Structure formats: C-alpha cells, structure tokens
C-alpha cells in the first residue's frame, strides 16, 4: 500500500487570498491582426451554435407532430387539467375563508357573552357582600349601646346583681335537663343577703313537699311512661331520697312494685334496709343495757 502526498496548493474550498480579490489581470499583448482574427472566430462559433439550436428545435417540433400523432393535444389537455385542479383548490380556499370568518364571529360572540356573564356575577356578588357588610356594621352599632363604659359601669353592675343568670343544670341519659331553681336574693326569708345557693345539693329544703312530689311523678312518668299509677307511693322528703335511688336502679315496673310492697330488687337496697334495722336494734340494746 502506497501513501501519496496530498496535491500541492491551497484546498479549493478555502477562500482566495485578499490580494487576489483586488487583482486586475493584464491580458497578454495581441497584435491587431490576431485580435481581429480571434474576434471573427468567436462570432462565427456563436452563430453556428445559434443556428444549430434553431435547426434542432424545428426538427424536434416537426418530429413530434409527425411521429407522436398529435402530442400537442396531450400537452393542451394536461395544461387544462392543471388549471382546472388549481381553480378547484382556490374555490375550496374561498369556502374555507367564509366558514372561518363565520366561526370566528361565533367564537367572538360566545366569548363576549361569557365575559359579560362573569362580570354580572361578580357585580351581584359584590352587591350582596356590600349589603351583608352594611347589616353587620349596623348590628355592631346597635350592640355598642350595651357596651360597658365608665359612665354606665355602676348601673350595669347593679343590674347584674339584681338579675343573676344561672347556667347550672343537670342532665340525664335521656337528655332531659333539670334546671336548678332560680336563686333567691334573700333565701330563708332573711332580710340580709347571705349568699347564693345555685346548686340543688346545697339547698335540699328549698323545694316544698308538693314540688318534690311533682318532680318525682314527672320522673317516674318519663321513665315508665305511665300517669297517675305510682302516685300513692310517693313518700316524705327524707324517705323519698331512698325512693329516688330505687327508681333510678329499677329496670322494670315489677321491680318498683316489689320495692314498694317490701321486697328489694337490689342487694344494695337490702343491705341498706338491713343495716338500718340492725342499727335500730343495736340502739335499742344499747339503750336497754344503759337502763339496766
């Protein structure tokens, strides 16, 4: 395998030197006779080529007419076909333009309506909000009449003391609320204000017997859904405490009847009753021993 040197000189792809760009080549000197001869030869050559081209063109046209049996007709048909197809395409473009204009118009109308609807909604919303806010502010202004100020402080304190509010109530599993009675300013018919008894446990004697009886009947009626059946079993306040507990522990109507007649449904009640009896017996014994 031989390795050849690359050809000398500059690669053809590179641009020419700067000097060459402005270089003006001086032709060799020619004598006038030689110049005249060369000019004449060039003229003759050009004329020959021109005439040859014309000859061959004429030959081609006559040849085509003779040998091809009317090819100009085919050419004409082809040109007409092309014109027809181009015209069809232009017609399609015109139709497309009309449809596009219509479509753009519809889109514009739709966009405009949507925009206006949105604007209307926003205005309505703003109006509504404005109304709500004005109402709020007016209420706030009304409330300011009851605000505490240094001027009406003493008056408000007196009012609060005269009209206390009780938020204390008890609630059972059924959800019935038992409010404590309204606190009295002067309990136990005392002239002097001793204190507030808001809790029921602190003031058992506040309720009268009739009120207690009424409470218990209501309690039984709500639990057992009866009316006026158990009224004779309501007892005095002291003993009524036991009855209340028995009612809470009783499951059915039979249990209540048993308890009232003397039988106990619960061991706790037995114990309670037994202890009571035992204690009374003990007391008697003690008393008897002392006497002796």
């Amino acid at each position, binding site marked *: 395998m*031989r*390795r*050849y*040197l690359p050809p000398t000189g500059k690669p053809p792809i590179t641009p020419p030197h700067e000097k060459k760009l402005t270089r003006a080549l001086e032709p060799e000197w020619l004598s006038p006779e030689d110049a005249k001869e060369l000019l004449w030869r060039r003229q003759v050559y050009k004329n*020959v*080529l021109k005439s*040859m081209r014309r000859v*061959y063109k004429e*030959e*081609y046209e006559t*040849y*085509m007419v003779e*040998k*091809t049996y009317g*090819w100009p007709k*085919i*050419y004409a*048909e*082809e040109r007409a*076909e*092309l014109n027809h*197809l*181009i015209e*069809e*395409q232009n017609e*399609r*473009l015109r139709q*497309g333009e009309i449809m*596009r204009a219509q479509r753009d118009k519809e889109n514009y109308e739709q966009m405009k309506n949507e925009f206006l609807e949105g604007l209307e909604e926003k205005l309505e919303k703003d109006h509504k909000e404005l109304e709500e806010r004005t109402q709020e502010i007016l209420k706030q202004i009304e409330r300011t009449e009851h605000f505490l100020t240094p001027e009406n402080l003493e008056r408000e304190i007196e009012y609060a003391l005269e009209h206390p509010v009780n938020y204390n109530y008890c609630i059972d599993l059924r959800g019935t609320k038992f409010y404590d009675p309204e606190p009295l300013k002067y309990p136990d018919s005392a002239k002097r204000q001793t204190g507030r008894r808001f809790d029921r446990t602190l003031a058992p004697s506040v309720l009268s017997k009739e009120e207690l009886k009424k409470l218990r009947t209501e309690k039984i009626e709500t639990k057992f859904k009866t009316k006026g059946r158990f009224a004779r079993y309501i007892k005095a306040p002291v003993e009524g405490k036991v009855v209340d507990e028995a009612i809470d522990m009783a499951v059915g109507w039979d249990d209540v009847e048993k308890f009232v007649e003397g039988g106990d449904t619960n061991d706790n009640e037995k114990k309670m009753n037994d202890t009571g009896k035992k204690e009374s017996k003990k007391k008697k014994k003690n008393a008897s021993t002392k006497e002796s």
Partner: protein
Amino acid sequence: MPFMRGVMPIRRTFFYLEQGRVVFRDDVKVFCLGYHQRPEPHQKGAKEFIFWHWAQLQFRNPYIQLVKLKNFTVTPFAMAFLKDGREVLFDLEGKSKDEIVDMFNGTLGKTKLCLQREALESKYSVAGFGDNHPRQCICEIQGQQPCTSLVKAPDYMCGRWRWNHQGAKLKRNKRII
C-alpha cells in the same frame, strides 16, 4: 442514539421511502410547508405529515426544492410555486395527515394523463442515437468529434497518453513516499 429507537428509523428505510404517494408534476418547482412545533389539536395534521411523509416527499421529488417553515403563521399552510410563476395555496387547519396527502396528490400530483405523456416521451426520444433513432452516431452532428474509425483522435484525448506520458510519470513518482 435517539433516532434509532421506535418509529423513527422505519421512516428512513428504502422500502418505506418508495411507498411515498405524493409525486408532484414537472410544473412544480418549489414547495413550502408551515407547521407548528407544539401544535394544538387543529394544527396537528401538518406536524404529523412532516414526521411521516416529508422524507418520502424528498425521495420521490428529488428535483423540487422543499422548504419547512416552523411557527411561521397561526394556521398551518402549504404553498407550491409553479414554473410559470403561479402560486397554489393549501389550508391545512383541521386536517389529518391522510387528508393532506390526498389533497396534495389530487391537486398537484401526477395524473393519469401526465404519466401517459411521460411514458410516450421516454419511448420516442430525439436525443437518442442508434438503430431506432433518427441518428446512428453523434459524429453525424456538425461540430462534434468525428468517429475514430474514420479519423484518428489526437493523442491528448487518449487515455493511453494521459496516464503514461512523461509529465504524468514524473508527477506520480514524486508523490509516492
């Protein structure tokens, strides 16, 4: 090599390129197509046409200048410039790639008449030489070199002299290392 994955290399196989349907007439000299890089649904057809059929178009129309214009106009379009100076415009908005192919073929593609004329032309060629042509040899035409069977050709026109004369030998010897 991302080009060698998926569908892309199939579009450059010889078999695929030969299946191209769009063959323009001789009147069409320049054809340009404007498409979008990130098309919307109604502009998708043009981009798909470029993806699938542009190489086929180039293969089947080697003497036509094909130009792609990216993000040039709002609507995708195509324009053909004919030999006589006329321009034919195509609106490609809302069309699929198959519809575009049919449109090009139907308007500027080679029809039956066109193909018939070309077949006839190839059959009867005035520029041919030989038995079935008007001239037997090119030497019959004025201005051409005469036949070497009748007149000997000068040395400088023979390959024998060109490869073996003294100047060429010296040059060849110098260049060998």
